[in-house]
Protein backbone atom coordinates (compact mmCIF):
# COMPACT_ATOMS: atom_id res chain seq x y z
CA UNK A 1 0.00 0.00 0.00
CA UNK A 2 1.35 3.37 -1.02
CA UNK A 3 -1.62 5.50 0.06
CA UNK A 4 -1.16 8.10 2.79
CA UNK A 5 -4.18 7.59 5.06
CA UNK A 6 -4.04 10.97 6.77
CA UNK A 7 -6.89 13.45 6.08
CA UNK A 8 -6.74 16.87 4.40
CA UNK A 9 -3.75 16.34 2.15
CA UNK A 10 -5.21 17.68 -1.08
CA UNK A 11 -6.23 21.17 0.02
CA UNK A 12 -2.65 21.53 1.26
CA UNK A 13 -1.38 20.48 -2.18
CA UNK A 14 -3.71 22.96 -3.94
CA UNK A 15 -4.28 25.76 -1.36
CA UNK A 16 -5.39 28.36 -3.96
CA UNK A 17 -8.55 26.36 -4.55
CA UNK A 18 -10.07 27.16 -1.16
CA UNK A 19 -12.33 25.01 0.98
CA UNK A 20 -15.68 26.82 1.02
CA UNK A 21 -19.10 25.64 -0.13
CA UNK A 22 -20.00 25.56 -3.85
CA UNK A 23 -23.26 27.05 -5.18
CA UNK A 24 -25.92 24.57 -6.27
CA UNK A 25 -27.56 26.93 -8.74
CA UNK A 26 -25.40 25.87 -11.74
CA UNK A 27 -26.76 22.33 -11.38
CA UNK A 28 -30.42 23.36 -11.59
CA UNK A 29 -30.54 26.67 -13.44
CA UNK A 30 -31.95 26.75 -17.00
CA UNK A 31 -30.07 30.04 -17.52
CA UNK A 32 -26.79 28.39 -16.57
CA UNK A 33 -27.55 25.51 -18.92
CA UNK A 34 -28.07 27.92 -21.83
CA UNK A 35 -24.69 29.53 -21.09
CA UNK A 36 -23.04 26.10 -20.96
CA UNK A 37 -24.27 25.37 -24.48
CA UNK A 38 -22.49 28.44 -25.86
CA UNK A 39 -19.49 28.87 -23.60
CA UNK A 40 -18.57 25.25 -22.87
CA UNK A 41 -19.92 22.76 -25.39
CA UNK A 42 -19.51 24.98 -28.46
CA UNK A 43 -16.00 26.10 -27.48
CA UNK A 44 -14.19 23.07 -26.10
CA UNK A 45 -13.03 19.77 -27.53
CA UNK A 46 -15.76 17.12 -27.16
CA UNK A 47 -15.08 13.39 -27.47
CA UNK A 48 -17.68 12.02 -29.87
CA UNK A 49 -16.56 8.44 -30.50
CA UNK A 50 -13.61 6.07 -30.70
CA UNK A 51 -11.86 4.42 -33.60
CA UNK A 52 -13.84 1.27 -32.66
CA UNK A 53 -16.95 3.08 -33.96
CA UNK A 54 -15.26 3.51 -37.36
CA UNK A 55 -13.97 -0.04 -37.84
CA UNK A 56 -12.57 0.45 -41.35
CA UNK A 57 -12.08 3.10 -44.04
CA UNK A 58 -15.40 4.02 -45.64
CA UNK A 59 -17.48 3.84 -42.46
CA UNK A 60 -19.29 6.55 -40.51
CA UNK A 61 -20.73 7.17 -37.07
CA UNK A 62 -23.47 9.63 -36.08
CA UNK A 63 -23.33 11.53 -32.81
CA UNK A 64 -26.40 13.54 -31.82
CA UNK A 65 -24.98 16.48 -29.91
CA UNK A 66 -28.25 17.62 -28.40
CA UNK A 67 -26.64 20.24 -26.16
CA UNK A 68 -25.32 21.96 -29.31
CA UNK A 69 -28.61 21.32 -31.12
CA UNK A 70 -26.94 19.40 -33.90
CA UNK A 71 -26.24 15.95 -35.25
CA UNK A 72 -22.70 15.16 -36.40
CA UNK A 73 -21.41 12.77 -39.03
CA UNK A 74 -17.99 11.36 -38.27
CA UNK A 75 -16.55 9.77 -41.40
CA UNK A 76 -13.47 7.61 -41.75
CA UNK A 77 -12.72 8.19 -45.41
CA UNK A 78 -11.43 5.61 -47.84
CA UNK A 79 -8.17 7.63 -47.51
CA UNK A 80 -8.25 6.65 -43.78
CA UNK A 81 -8.61 10.29 -42.67
CA UNK A 82 -11.30 10.95 -40.05
CA UNK A 83 -13.44 14.02 -40.73
CA UNK A 84 -16.51 15.48 -39.04
CA UNK A 85 -19.47 17.30 -40.57
CA UNK A 86 -22.87 18.48 -39.55
CA UNK A 87 -25.25 15.68 -40.54
CA UNK A 88 -27.32 18.19 -42.51
CA UNK A 89 -28.12 18.14 -46.21
CA UNK A 90 -27.28 21.23 -48.27
CA UNK A 91 -30.60 21.00 -50.12
CA UNK A 92 -33.21 21.73 -47.44
CA UNK A 93 -31.53 20.80 -44.20
CA UNK A 94 -32.68 17.23 -43.76
CA UNK A 95 -30.55 14.89 -41.64
CA UNK A 96 -28.43 12.98 -44.16
CA UNK A 97 -28.05 9.80 -42.14
CA UNK A 98 -30.96 8.61 -40.01
CA UNK A 99 -28.80 5.71 -38.78
CA UNK A 100 -26.30 5.51 -35.91
CA UNK A 101 -23.52 4.14 -38.11
CA UNK A 102 -22.89 2.50 -41.44
CA UNK A 103 -20.75 2.17 -44.55
CA UNK A 104 -20.25 5.09 -46.93
CA UNK A 105 -17.67 3.86 -49.40
CA UNK A 106 -20.28 4.31 -52.16
CA UNK A 107 -21.42 7.63 -50.72
CA UNK A 108 -24.04 8.96 -48.36
CA UNK A 109 -27.52 9.56 -49.70
CA UNK A 110 -29.92 12.03 -48.10
CA UNK A 111 -33.19 10.06 -47.81
CA UNK A 112 -35.38 13.07 -48.72
CA UNK A 113 -34.30 13.64 -52.38
CA UNK A 114 -31.29 11.34 -52.69
CA UNK A 115 -28.64 14.05 -52.75
CA UNK A 116 -25.36 12.20 -52.67
CA UNK A 117 -22.15 13.04 -50.77
CA UNK A 118 -18.83 11.26 -50.94
CA UNK A 119 -16.72 10.14 -47.98
CA UNK A 120 -15.01 13.57 -47.90
CA UNK A 121 -18.33 15.38 -47.51
CA UNK A 122 -18.38 16.67 -51.10
CA UNK A 123 -21.72 16.91 -52.90
CA UNK A 124 -21.41 14.59 -55.89
CA UNK A 125 -24.95 13.88 -57.00
CA UNK A 126 -28.22 15.83 -57.32
CA UNK A 127 -31.26 14.15 -58.95
CA UNK A 128 -32.88 16.36 -61.62
CA UNK A 129 -29.94 18.73 -61.38
CA UNK A 130 -30.94 20.59 -64.56
CA UNK A 131 -34.06 21.92 -62.82
CA UNK A 132 -31.99 23.85 -60.24
CA UNK A 133 -30.77 27.39 -60.84
CA UNK A 134 -27.01 28.09 -60.88
CA UNK A 135 -26.30 25.19 -58.53
CA UNK A 136 -22.53 24.81 -58.06
CA UNK A 137 -22.11 21.43 -56.36
CA UNK A 138 -18.55 22.34 -55.32
CA UNK A 139 -19.96 25.01 -53.00
CA UNK A 140 -22.50 22.76 -51.34
CA UNK A 141 -20.65 20.03 -49.56
CA UNK A 142 -21.50 19.06 -45.99
CA UNK A 143 -20.61 21.72 -43.40
CA UNK A 144 -17.31 20.65 -41.81
CA UNK A 145 -16.58 20.65 -38.09
CA UNK A 146 -13.06 20.79 -36.65
CA UNK A 147 -12.07 17.23 -35.80
CA UNK A 148 -8.93 15.57 -34.47
CA UNK A 149 -7.95 12.17 -33.09
CA UNK A 150 -5.89 11.44 -29.99
CA UNK A 151 -4.96 7.84 -29.13
CA UNK A 152 -7.96 6.56 -31.11
CA UNK A 153 -10.41 8.94 -29.39
CA UNK A 154 -12.18 11.21 -31.88
CA UNK A 155 -12.88 14.77 -30.72
CA UNK A 156 -14.67 17.69 -32.35
CA UNK A 157 -14.65 21.40 -31.61
CA UNK A 158 -17.66 23.43 -32.80
CA UNK A 159 -15.90 26.80 -32.48
CA UNK A 160 -15.45 28.45 -35.89
CA UNK A 161 -11.73 28.72 -35.02
CA UNK A 162 -10.72 26.62 -31.99
CA UNK A 163 -8.41 28.51 -29.64
CA UNK A 164 -6.16 25.48 -29.11
CA UNK A 165 -5.25 22.28 -30.89
CA UNK A 166 -6.67 19.09 -29.36
CA UNK A 167 -3.25 18.09 -28.08
CA UNK A 168 -2.70 21.45 -26.39
CA UNK A 169 -6.21 21.23 -24.91
CA UNK A 170 -5.45 17.81 -23.42
CA UNK A 171 -2.28 19.23 -21.89
CA UNK A 172 -0.82 17.22 -19.03
CA UNK A 173 -3.32 14.40 -19.45
CA UNK A 174 -2.00 13.89 -22.96
CA UNK A 175 1.53 13.71 -21.55
CA UNK A 176 0.57 11.30 -18.77
CA UNK A 177 -1.28 8.94 -21.15
CA UNK A 178 1.29 9.09 -23.95
CA UNK A 179 1.77 5.57 -25.32
CA UNK A 180 -1.12 4.05 -23.36
CA UNK A 181 -2.14 0.87 -25.23
CA UNK A 182 -5.78 1.91 -25.79
CA UNK A 183 -5.75 0.38 -29.26
CA UNK A 184 -4.98 -3.07 -27.81
CA UNK A 185 -8.21 -2.97 -25.80
CA UNK A 186 -11.24 -3.16 -28.12
CA UNK A 187 -14.74 -2.06 -27.19
CA UNK A 188 -16.44 -4.77 -25.12
CA UNK A 189 -19.77 -3.20 -24.16
CA UNK A 190 -21.67 0.07 -24.33
CA UNK A 191 -24.58 1.12 -22.12
CA UNK A 192 -26.71 4.20 -22.47
CA UNK A 193 -29.05 5.29 -19.71
CA UNK A 194 -31.20 8.40 -19.71
CA UNK A 195 -31.42 9.98 -16.27
CA UNK A 196 -33.59 12.74 -14.83
CA UNK A 197 -30.63 14.75 -13.64
CA UNK A 198 -28.23 17.51 -14.58
CA UNK A 199 -25.13 16.30 -16.38
CA UNK A 200 -22.81 17.76 -13.74
CA UNK A 201 -24.61 16.03 -10.89
CA UNK A 202 -24.06 12.68 -12.59
CA UNK A 203 -20.43 13.48 -13.33
CA UNK A 204 -19.79 14.80 -9.81
CA UNK A 205 -21.31 11.67 -8.28
CA UNK A 206 -18.77 9.55 -10.14
CA UNK A 207 -15.88 11.90 -9.43
CA UNK A 208 -15.12 10.66 -5.89
CA UNK A 209 -14.91 7.41 -3.94
CA UNK A 210 -16.11 8.78 -0.56
CA UNK A 211 -19.59 7.39 -1.36
CA UNK A 212 -18.56 3.81 -2.14
CA UNK A 213 -18.98 2.21 1.32
CA UNK A 214 -22.36 3.92 1.74
CA UNK A 215 -24.01 3.89 -1.69
CA UNK A 216 -22.61 0.45 -2.67
CA UNK A 217 -22.19 -1.43 0.63
CA UNK A 218 -23.04 -4.88 -0.72
CA UNK A 219 -21.31 -4.63 -4.11
CA UNK A 220 -17.97 -2.84 -3.69
CA UNK A 221 -18.05 -1.19 -0.26
CA UNK A 222 -15.14 -3.38 0.81
CA UNK A 223 -13.05 -3.26 -2.37
CA UNK A 224 -11.40 0.15 -2.41
CA UNK A 225 -8.69 1.05 0.08
CA UNK A 226 -10.07 2.21 3.44
CA UNK A 227 -8.44 3.70 6.52
CA UNK A 228 -8.96 2.30 10.05
CA UNK A 229 -12.26 4.16 10.34
CA UNK A 230 -13.39 2.53 7.05
CA UNK A 231 -13.21 5.72 5.02
CA UNK A 232 -11.77 5.80 1.53
CA UNK A 233 -8.49 7.57 0.81
CA UNK A 234 -7.08 8.57 -2.56
CA UNK A 235 -3.54 7.70 -3.52
CA UNK A 236 -3.03 10.77 -5.68
CA UNK A 237 -4.80 13.84 -7.01
CA UNK A 238 -3.59 15.88 -9.98
CA UNK A 239 -5.28 19.05 -11.15
CA UNK A 240 -4.35 19.92 -14.71
CA UNK A 241 -5.20 23.11 -16.58
CA UNK A 242 -8.81 21.95 -17.05
CA UNK A 243 -8.79 18.24 -16.45
CA UNK A 244 -8.28 16.17 -13.30
CA UNK A 245 -6.99 12.82 -12.13
CA UNK A 246 -7.59 10.93 -8.95
CA UNK A 247 -6.10 7.54 -8.36
CA UNK A 248 -6.66 4.93 -5.70
CA UNK A 249 -5.70 1.43 -4.59
CA UNK A 250 -7.76 -1.63 -3.68
CA UNK A 251 -7.97 -3.42 -0.33
CA UNK A 252 -5.53 -6.29 -0.42
CA UNK A 253 -7.00 -9.67 0.50
CA UNK A 254 -10.63 -8.64 0.81
CA UNK A 255 -13.15 -11.45 1.23
CA UNK A 256 -14.01 -12.90 -2.16
CA UNK A 257 -17.54 -13.78 -3.26
CA UNK A 258 -17.97 -17.41 -4.48
CA UNK A 259 -17.99 -16.28 -8.10
CA UNK A 260 -14.72 -14.38 -7.61
CA UNK A 261 -13.11 -17.45 -6.08
CA UNK A 262 -14.24 -19.48 -9.08
CA UNK A 263 -12.84 -16.90 -11.50
CA UNK A 264 -9.47 -17.26 -9.77
CA UNK A 265 -9.53 -20.91 -10.86
CA UNK A 266 -10.91 -20.64 -14.40
CA UNK A 267 -9.29 -17.42 -15.65
CA UNK A 268 -5.79 -18.30 -16.83
CA UNK A 269 -5.28 -14.69 -17.85
CA UNK A 270 -4.85 -13.44 -21.35
CA UNK A 271 -1.82 -12.03 -23.09
CA UNK A 272 -1.16 -10.19 -19.84
CA UNK A 273 -1.67 -6.66 -21.11
CA UNK A 274 -0.52 -4.13 -18.51
CA UNK A 275 -0.97 -0.37 -18.64
CA UNK A 276 2.34 1.20 -17.59
CA UNK A 277 0.67 4.60 -17.31
CA UNK A 278 -1.42 3.52 -14.29
CA UNK A 279 -0.64 5.71 -11.27
CA UNK A 280 -2.53 3.47 -8.82
CA UNK A 281 -4.89 0.56 -9.37
CA UNK A 282 -7.86 2.66 -10.50
CA UNK A 283 -7.16 5.97 -12.23
CA UNK A 284 -10.06 8.32 -12.93
CA UNK A 285 -9.48 11.14 -15.42
CA UNK A 286 -12.09 13.81 -16.03
CA UNK A 287 -11.50 15.39 -19.43
CA UNK A 288 -13.33 18.67 -19.26
CA UNK A 289 -16.15 19.09 -19.92
CA UNK A 290 -18.04 15.79 -20.08
CA UNK A 291 -15.73 12.81 -20.60
CA UNK A 292 -14.15 10.37 -18.16
CA UNK A 293 -11.40 7.85 -18.86
CA UNK A 294 -10.87 5.16 -16.23
CA UNK A 295 -7.81 2.92 -16.33
CA UNK A 296 -7.93 -0.10 -14.04
CA UNK A 297 -5.74 -2.96 -12.98
CA UNK A 298 -7.34 -6.40 -13.24
CA UNK A 299 -6.03 -9.58 -11.64
CA UNK A 300 -5.10 -11.06 -15.03
CA UNK A 301 -5.09 -8.08 -17.37
CA UNK A 302 -5.78 -4.36 -17.35
CA UNK A 303 -8.61 -2.54 -19.08
CA UNK A 304 -10.23 0.83 -19.40
CA UNK A 305 -13.67 2.40 -19.41
CA UNK A 306 -15.07 5.69 -20.62
CA UNK A 307 -18.06 7.77 -19.60
CA UNK A 308 -19.66 10.52 -21.65
CA UNK A 309 -22.32 12.60 -19.96
CA UNK A 310 -24.58 13.97 -22.71
CA UNK A 311 -26.74 16.88 -21.59
CA UNK A 312 -30.21 16.85 -23.12
CA UNK A 313 -31.72 19.58 -20.94
CA UNK A 314 -30.95 21.10 -17.55
CA UNK A 315 -32.69 18.12 -15.94
CA UNK A 316 -32.03 15.30 -18.43
CA UNK A 317 -28.78 13.51 -19.22
CA UNK A 318 -27.69 10.45 -21.12
CA UNK A 319 -24.89 8.60 -19.33
CA UNK A 320 -22.95 6.61 -21.92
CA UNK A 321 -20.75 3.93 -20.40
CA UNK A 322 -18.21 1.90 -22.34
CA UNK A 323 -15.87 -0.91 -21.27
CA UNK A 324 -12.75 -1.88 -23.21
CA UNK A 325 -10.82 -5.10 -22.54
CA UNK A 326 -8.04 -6.95 -24.34
CA UNK A 327 -9.79 -9.50 -26.57
CA UNK A 328 -10.51 -12.65 -24.56
CA UNK A 329 -8.44 -15.58 -25.86
CA UNK A 330 -10.20 -18.32 -23.85
CA UNK A 331 -13.53 -19.02 -22.19
CA UNK A 332 -12.37 -18.42 -18.62
CA UNK A 333 -11.17 -14.94 -19.58
CA UNK A 334 -14.44 -14.19 -21.37
CA UNK A 335 -16.45 -15.17 -18.26
CA UNK A 336 -14.14 -13.10 -16.08
CA UNK A 337 -14.71 -10.05 -18.27
CA UNK A 338 -18.47 -10.63 -18.12
CA UNK A 339 -18.29 -10.77 -14.33
CA UNK A 340 -16.38 -7.51 -14.04
CA UNK A 341 -18.78 -5.80 -16.44
CA UNK A 342 -21.89 -7.05 -14.59
CA UNK A 343 -20.47 -6.02 -11.22
CA UNK A 344 -19.68 -2.49 -12.32
CA UNK A 345 -22.97 -2.25 -14.23
CA UNK A 346 -24.89 -3.15 -11.08
CA UNK A 347 -22.87 -0.55 -9.16
CA UNK A 348 -23.77 2.01 -11.80
CA UNK A 349 -27.46 1.17 -11.48
CA UNK A 350 -27.11 2.08 -7.81
CA UNK A 351 -25.40 5.30 -8.90
CA UNK A 352 -28.18 6.19 -11.34
CA UNK A 353 -30.75 6.26 -8.58
CA UNK A 354 -28.46 8.66 -6.66
CA UNK A 355 -27.98 10.91 -9.71
CA UNK A 356 -31.74 11.38 -9.93
CA UNK A 357 -32.28 11.78 -6.18
CA UNK A 358 -29.51 14.40 -6.02
CA UNK A 359 -31.16 16.42 -8.77
CA UNK A 360 -34.58 16.21 -7.11
CA UNK A 361 -33.06 17.39 -3.84
CA UNK A 362 -31.12 20.30 -5.28
CA UNK A 363 -34.01 21.37 -7.52
CA UNK A 364 -36.12 21.85 -4.38
CA UNK A 365 -33.80 24.78 -3.53
CA UNK A 366 -33.89 23.68 0.10
CA UNK A 367 -30.09 24.04 -0.05
CA UNK A 368 -28.25 26.84 -1.83
CA UNK A 369 -24.80 25.25 -1.62
CA UNK A 370 -23.00 21.92 -1.65
CA UNK A 371 -20.24 21.07 0.82
CA UNK A 372 -17.16 19.14 -0.33
CA UNK A 373 -14.56 17.40 1.78
CA UNK A 374 -10.86 17.09 0.99
CA UNK A 375 -11.24 13.76 -0.83
CA UNK A 376 -13.81 15.41 -3.13
CA UNK A 377 -11.36 18.07 -4.32
CA UNK A 378 -11.60 17.16 -8.00
CA UNK A 379 -15.31 18.05 -7.95
CA UNK A 380 -14.47 21.41 -6.39
CA UNK A 381 -11.93 22.01 -9.14
CA UNK A 382 -14.33 20.92 -11.88
CA UNK A 383 -16.86 23.54 -10.76
CA UNK A 384 -14.14 26.20 -10.74
CA UNK A 385 -13.03 25.33 -14.28
CA UNK A 386 -16.65 25.25 -15.43
CA UNK A 387 -17.41 28.66 -13.94
CA UNK A 388 -14.20 30.05 -15.46
CA UNK A 389 -15.72 29.14 -18.84
CA UNK A 390 -19.33 30.10 -18.10
CA UNK A 391 -18.77 33.34 -16.15
CA UNK A 392 -22.26 33.31 -14.61
CA UNK A 393 -20.98 34.80 -11.35
CA UNK A 394 -18.79 37.35 -13.10
CA UNK A 395 -21.90 39.14 -14.37
CA UNK A 396 -25.29 40.01 -12.95
CA UNK A 397 -25.24 37.08 -10.52
CA UNK A 398 -22.00 38.06 -8.78
CA UNK A 399 -23.77 38.83 -5.52
CA UNK A 400 -25.60 35.49 -5.51
CA UNK A 401 -22.53 33.29 -5.25
Amino acid at each position, binding site marked *: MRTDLRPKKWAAKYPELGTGPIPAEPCISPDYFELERERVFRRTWINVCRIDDLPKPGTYFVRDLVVCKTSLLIIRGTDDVIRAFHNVCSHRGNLVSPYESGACNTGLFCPFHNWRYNDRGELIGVPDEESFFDLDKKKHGLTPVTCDVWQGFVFVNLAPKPEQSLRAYLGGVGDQLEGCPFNDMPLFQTYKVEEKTNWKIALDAQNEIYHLPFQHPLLIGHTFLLNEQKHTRLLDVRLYERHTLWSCEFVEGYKLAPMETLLGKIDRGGEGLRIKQLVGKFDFYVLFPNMVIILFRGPAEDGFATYNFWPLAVDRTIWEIRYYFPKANH*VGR*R*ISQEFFKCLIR*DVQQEDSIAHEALYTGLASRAKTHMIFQDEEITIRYFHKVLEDHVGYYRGAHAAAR
Partner: protein
Amino acid sequence: MAAQALPAPFADLAPHGAWALEREAERTAKREASTVEDVRAFYDAVFPRMEAMVAHLERFPLDALREPERRLLWLALSVVEVSNLTERYRRREAIRAVSPLTYRSVQ
Protein backbone atom coordinates in the same frame (compact mmCIF):
# COMPACT_ATOMS: atom_id res chain seq x y z
CA MET B 1 -35.26 -29.98 -29.69
CA ALA B 2 -31.76 -30.70 -30.97
CA ALA B 3 -31.10 -26.96 -31.39
CA GLN B 4 -31.86 -26.55 -27.68
CA ALA B 5 -29.42 -29.24 -26.61
CA LEU B 6 -26.51 -28.79 -24.24
CA PRO B 7 -23.31 -30.86 -24.60
CA ALA B 8 -23.87 -34.44 -23.44
CA PRO B 9 -22.00 -34.18 -20.08
CA PHE B 10 -24.35 -31.35 -19.14
CA ALA B 11 -27.63 -32.83 -20.42
CA ASP B 12 -28.90 -32.91 -16.83
CA LEU B 13 -28.95 -29.10 -16.84
CA ALA B 14 -31.67 -29.14 -19.52
CA PRO B 15 -34.37 -28.02 -17.01
CA HIS B 16 -32.41 -24.73 -16.80
CA GLY B 17 -32.02 -24.39 -20.57
CA ALA B 18 -34.30 -21.34 -20.62
CA TRP B 19 -31.35 -19.41 -19.13
CA ALA B 20 -29.15 -20.18 -22.16
CA LEU B 21 -29.65 -16.72 -23.69
CA GLU B 22 -27.26 -15.17 -26.15
CA ARG B 23 -27.68 -11.49 -25.36
CA GLU B 24 -27.01 -9.75 -22.09
CA ALA B 25 -30.29 -7.84 -22.34
CA GLU B 26 -32.13 -11.15 -22.53
CA ARG B 27 -30.27 -12.52 -19.51
CA THR B 28 -31.02 -9.38 -17.52
CA ALA B 29 -34.70 -9.48 -18.51
CA LYS B 30 -34.91 -13.14 -17.46
CA ARG B 31 -33.35 -12.32 -14.09
CA GLU B 32 -35.77 -9.44 -13.59
CA ALA B 33 -38.80 -11.54 -14.56
CA SER B 34 -37.87 -14.35 -12.14
CA THR B 35 -38.52 -14.65 -8.45
CA VAL B 36 -35.47 -14.72 -6.19
CA GLU B 37 -36.37 -18.35 -5.42
CA ASP B 38 -36.26 -19.24 -9.11
CA VAL B 39 -32.99 -17.38 -9.60
CA ARG B 40 -31.47 -19.16 -6.62
CA ALA B 41 -32.65 -22.57 -7.85
CA PHE B 42 -30.92 -21.88 -11.18
CA TYR B 43 -27.74 -20.62 -9.50
CA ASP B 44 -27.63 -23.50 -7.01
CA ALA B 45 -27.98 -26.05 -9.80
CA VAL B 46 -25.50 -24.57 -12.27
CA PHE B 47 -22.87 -22.73 -10.21
CA PRO B 48 -21.33 -25.95 -8.79
CA ARG B 49 -20.90 -27.17 -12.38
CA MET B 50 -19.16 -24.02 -13.65
CA GLU B 51 -15.62 -25.32 -13.31
CA ALA B 52 -16.49 -28.44 -15.29
CA MET B 53 -18.41 -26.39 -17.85
CA VAL B 54 -15.42 -24.12 -18.42
CA ALA B 55 -13.05 -27.10 -18.60
CA HIS B 56 -15.28 -28.57 -21.31
CA LEU B 57 -15.52 -25.28 -23.22
CA GLU B 58 -11.76 -24.68 -23.05
CA ARG B 59 -11.30 -27.65 -25.41
CA PHE B 60 -12.71 -25.49 -28.22
CA PRO B 61 -11.57 -22.15 -29.68
CA LEU B 62 -13.67 -19.35 -28.20
CA ASP B 63 -14.49 -17.89 -31.62
CA ALA B 64 -15.70 -21.20 -33.10
CA LEU B 65 -17.90 -22.93 -30.52
CA ARG B 66 -20.47 -25.42 -31.81
CA GLU B 67 -24.13 -24.75 -31.03
CA PRO B 68 -24.38 -26.91 -27.87
CA GLU B 69 -21.17 -25.35 -26.54
CA ARG B 70 -22.40 -21.87 -27.40
CA ARG B 71 -25.52 -22.57 -25.36
CA LEU B 72 -23.40 -23.86 -22.49
CA LEU B 73 -21.38 -20.62 -22.52
CA TRP B 74 -24.59 -18.57 -22.47
CA LEU B 75 -25.75 -20.62 -19.48
CA ALA B 76 -22.48 -19.78 -17.70
CA LEU B 77 -22.90 -16.10 -18.56
CA SER B 78 -26.38 -16.24 -16.99
CA VAL B 79 -24.85 -17.57 -13.77
CA VAL B 80 -22.54 -14.53 -13.83
CA GLU B 81 -25.57 -12.33 -14.56
CA VAL B 82 -27.42 -13.47 -11.43
CA SER B 83 -24.45 -13.88 -9.08
CA ASN B 84 -24.67 -10.40 -7.56
CA LEU B 85 -28.28 -11.10 -6.66
CA THR B 86 -27.62 -14.52 -5.11
CA GLU B 87 -24.22 -13.82 -3.52
CA ARG B 88 -24.36 -10.18 -2.47
CA TYR B 89 -27.90 -8.78 -2.39
CA ARG B 90 -29.62 -12.07 -1.50
CA ARG B 91 -33.01 -10.32 -1.38
CA ARG B 92 -34.60 -8.00 -3.95
CA GLU B 93 -35.41 -5.57 -1.15
CA ALA B 94 -31.67 -5.04 -0.64
CA ILE B 95 -31.32 -3.57 -4.12
CA ARG B 96 -31.39 0.22 -4.13
CA ALA B 97 -30.98 0.93 -7.82
CA VAL B 98 -32.80 1.96 -10.97
CA SER B 99 -34.42 -0.79 -12.99
CA PRO B 100 -31.77 -2.60 -15.03
CA LEU B 101 -34.17 -2.38 -17.95
CA THR B 102 -33.42 1.38 -18.20
CA TYR B 103 -29.85 0.50 -19.22
CA ARG B 104 -29.81 0.22 -23.00
CA SER B 105 -27.20 -2.35 -23.84
CA VAL B 106 -25.43 -1.79 -27.16
CA GLN B 107 -23.37 -4.84 -28.12
